[in-house]
């Protein structure tokens, strides 16, 4: 199959910014997925497990939520923080 991407690849290379974003998302996705394999967790709990700032975890977790990789499990006893879990197809992997 002729792909137009092969034509553009002869004219330009992927930018460093694109490669950086790709690496960062893969790294965070992997870390969050591993943390949630142990069971549902809040954002501060995930951040504690993977040693990343809570705001960064929120950003990537909510992006994963948007693309259907995680879902809401419940809310904690104080009604303050939601617990999130992996979506079923992720669990099987």
């Amino acid at each position, binding site marked *: 199959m002729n792909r*137009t991407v092969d034509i553009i690849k002869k004219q330009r290379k992927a930018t460093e910014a694109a490669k950086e974003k790709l690496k960062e998302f893969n790294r965070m996705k992997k870390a969050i997925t591993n943390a949630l394999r142990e069971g549902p967790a809040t954002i501060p709990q995930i951040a504690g497990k993977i040693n990343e700032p809570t705001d960064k975890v929120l950003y990537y977790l*909510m992006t994963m939520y948007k693309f259907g990789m995680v879902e809401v499990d419940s809310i904690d006893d104080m009604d303050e923080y939601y617990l999130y879990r992996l979506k079923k197809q992720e669990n099987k992997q």
Partner: protein
Amino acid sequence: MLEPKKHYDVLVIGGGIAGQETALNLANLGYKIALVEKDYSIGGKMILLSKVFPTLDCAACITTPKVSETARHPNIDVFTYSQVEDIFKQERGFRFTLRQKPRYVTEDCTGCQLCEQVCPVVVEDEYQYGLIGRKAIFIPHSIANPRIAAIDIEHCTLCGLCENVCPPKSIDFTQQERVDEIYATAVVLATGYKLFDPTIIKRYGYGKYKNVVTAMQMERQLVPTRPFNNILRPSDGKVPDNIAYVLCTGSRDVTLGNPICSQVCCMYSTKQAQLLMGALPMADVTLYYINIRAFGKGFCEFYQQARSMGVGYVKGKVGRIFEKEDGNLILRYEDIETGEVAEAEHDLVVLSIGILPNKDYQNLFKNVRVEHDPYNYVRQVDELTSPARTSVDGVFVAGTASGPMDIPDTILSAGAASSETASYLRKVYKEIQPSLS
């Protein structure tokens, strides 16, 4: 990419609600319109709002029928992700350059979003004001029109996964920019406004303190297609229960070069406060204001309704915001009623950012000058009797390009612009061909 005609009756610059309304009114009279929008979708800022004040009607429900009507109208050619450049006034009409930029996805796109699922790159989503990420190939937002994906080529790794999965084969990395020279008899400037950038006010900590957000970021949290699963504070995902609004952020402030009122912040903050009380029934919401300007039809009642619902209104000018270790914020403000300096703690602060002029129109015209008013909005040369007229014959202004205004006033302004443009076109065409009545 759309192949433009050589000549249009009217060039409308800006596809927000003012541009759409003007284009629709003129198109319904039979005039051919080129509607040029710099963004990927028409709809302007209104399409991103949750509800409108003071009726609390759903903003998307009001605006999307107009968006569809504009996109489908046989007399309107809509050019998205496009720019108008180098407008020259001619003896009759205007010559201009239309630059259509490549989105690397053709009109065959069905908006299925399979490409988004496989794209491996995540970039800040500008349509969610950076609260979450989007992919390097993306549908701008859920009610975008046209609902065609676009590739952010600067953040694309050129992996080709999107091209592999696209069912209608609409990915085209060979797409090139298209530049055309076009003529129009009249021009309508509907270039809208810009939002104040609160990073300029360092003492409010926006950008540094994660729990200081803009009203537009809160607006996105209040729409059904919100970035998070509920309203959450961005520092750690906590459900906020004590929210503050800082009104007049970037408005009525001579030190920031914007001494005028933005006309909408008091009411949109009051609207958001009411919506928040519905979404988070346990939350306290407090608005810090200088004066409440509830001047429109039903505005005062809307404000009173918020007060009776329990929204707190503190007449106080916020001087500085400090962050505590737990992410909560201390607002230091001058209590205007007592003259004392006071402090209050909140777990989320929303800056009610104001409206600024979009000065892009000032460089568009090459051989004539569209004058601006003292605040850099398009100058209305005869505001009382002909509000859409500008300093250039044949150039009209619609909506917030002429000054801050709310949605109903924008529609009114666009109505004025379309009727004045129609009357101008009749006059010009009659001069060319007197038999035209």
